[in-house]
């Protein structure tokens, strides 16, 4: 049976035959880079059209329905439009920072792709501190937002960036603490080990109530971290026109937009990995027959199915809840989420030590 590791090995052997090791490594890196960029483009297109359709149906509208069959090519047309648009830099802006910011947002999103296991054996970099790496890097996004807001020389942008700073600094805590709950249960920060530990059932089922609480807090914190409604104070169309990217146009704007969606995808795939077993099919304890049937569904379908379900949940939040005020936002984090996640961490530790989980 074919698998991604076989393909990778094949490519490696073919390359190793013709080139010396250094060039082989370079070519392999280029291949990985190109596939990441390709994945980016596809994700951007798919998620934008998905968001527009989901939002339309939730608001009893039709959504895009003219370009292509049922409007499915709308985001492609939008991308074309953005590419041919002029990318302006305002006169009073700090030119270097202004032009650098969208690329930092993009590069952070790309780096975050590295430790994600897309399918069985399909993982770019299985480093042993995977979860730490993800939570460390995901907060770097705020640097790009602050850069964009500061360099635009526009008070709306600056306000949006400041809000985003306050928001990400606070929600990073509960996102990290909720992820820690699963790390405590698994005993490892490595993504591949977290996934294999769920071979006999996903943590959301095995970890009882603490895992469910951790999942809920994680999803809330992640929604806040990716700056999406109800926590989209950084953009807040109705108050700040477009927040930190008010001054951006053309492809530079598109990069911010894309980075937002890719971040959502990454955060949802992390949530899927931690709580729903990543690419691991639905296994229930010792029901070997059932487990065997589930194994027939390819692992990539499991992964993308779970991730897209979580993305749908986050979109569902976005189109249901009204935006929070900045003080409510900080209230929610410091008075509710943080104490709950801390208490929950204690609970999880007790569960792990006493061996109450399956």
């Amino acid at each position, binding site marked *: 049976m074919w698998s991604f590791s076989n393909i990778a090995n094949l490519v490696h052997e073919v390359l190793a035959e013709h080139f010396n090791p250094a060039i082989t490594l370079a070519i392999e890196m280029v291949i990985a880079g190109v596939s990441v960029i390709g994945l980016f483009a596809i994700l951007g297109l798919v998620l934008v059209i998905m968001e527009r359709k*989901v939002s339309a*149906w*939730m*608001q*009893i*509208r*039709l959504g895009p329905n003219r370009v292509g069959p049922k409007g499915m090519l709308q985001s492609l047309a939008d991308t074309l439009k953005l590419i041919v648009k002029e990318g302006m830099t305002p006169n009073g802006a700090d030119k270097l920072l202004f032009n650098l910011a969208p690329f930092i947002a993009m590069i952070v999103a790309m780096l975050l792709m590295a430790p994600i296991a897309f399918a069985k054996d399909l993982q770019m970099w299985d480093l042993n501190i995977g979860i730490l790496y993800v939570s460390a890097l995901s907060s770097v996004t705020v640097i790009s937002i602050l850069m964009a807001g500061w360099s635009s020389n526009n008070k709306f942008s600056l306000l949006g960036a400041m809000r985003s700073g306050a928001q990400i600094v606070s929600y990073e805590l509960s996102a990290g603490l909720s992820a820690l709950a699963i790390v405590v249960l698994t005993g490892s920060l490595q993504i591949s080990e977290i996934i294999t530990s769920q071979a006999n059932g996903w943590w959301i089922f095995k970890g009882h109530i603490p895992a469910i609480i951790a999942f809920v807090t994680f999803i809330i914190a992640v929604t806040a971290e990716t700056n999406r409604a109800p926590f989209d104070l950084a953009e807040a169309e109705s108050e700040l026109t477009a927040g930190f990217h008010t001054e951006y146009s053309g492809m530079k704007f598109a990069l911010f937009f894309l980075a937002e969606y890719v971040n959502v995808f990454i955060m949802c795939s992390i949530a899927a990995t931690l709580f729903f077993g990543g690419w691991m099919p639905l296994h229930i304890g010792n029901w070997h027959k059932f487990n065997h049937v589930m194994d027939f569904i390819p692992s990539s379908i499991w992964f993308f199915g779970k991730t897209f379900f979580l993305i749908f949940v986050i979109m*569902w*939040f976005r*189109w*249901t*809840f009204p935006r929070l005020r900045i003080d409510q936002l900080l209230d929610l984090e410091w008075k*509710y989420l943080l104490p*709950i996640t801390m208490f929950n961490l204690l609970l999880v530790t007790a569960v792990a030590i006493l061996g109450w989980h399956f």
Partner: protein
Amino acid sequence: MFIKNYIKNIFSAVKSLLVGMKRTLYYFTHHKEIITQQYPDNRDTLILPERFKGEVVMPHNENNEHRCTGCTACELACPNGSIKVITKFDISPDGKKKKAIDKLVYHLELCTMCNLCVEACPSDAIKMAQTFEHSVYDRNQLTKTLNNPGSKIMDGVE
């Protein structure tokens, strides 16, 4: 006490959020609820909501009679001067002078469809129509005379 309130707060908040999510999920899964009208395509079968307002009209009956007494209440009620009532004096058969309208001039280009004139009219002479395709090439065409030429007041309307 504090802890009890705290936990109660969390549960009531979660509950109210779930209620909202249930509603949007219902809309998401029930596409028959969609209210979008694909306008130029369904021009013939367009369904407008009952309270949609397109312009002010004055209904006439088959004898070319309307109900307007020329009281100018609509002109006074209009917040932006879209209505101008030009009155004249009719001589009734028994020789009395009677106030009546000569023209009721309506500026569609100024009207905000606020419905105040219709509310103000004591004799229900005007109402809002649902027509909305008002574009013309010359704005003079938007100034309309609501009473038909040669029309007169219905019997029994004071």
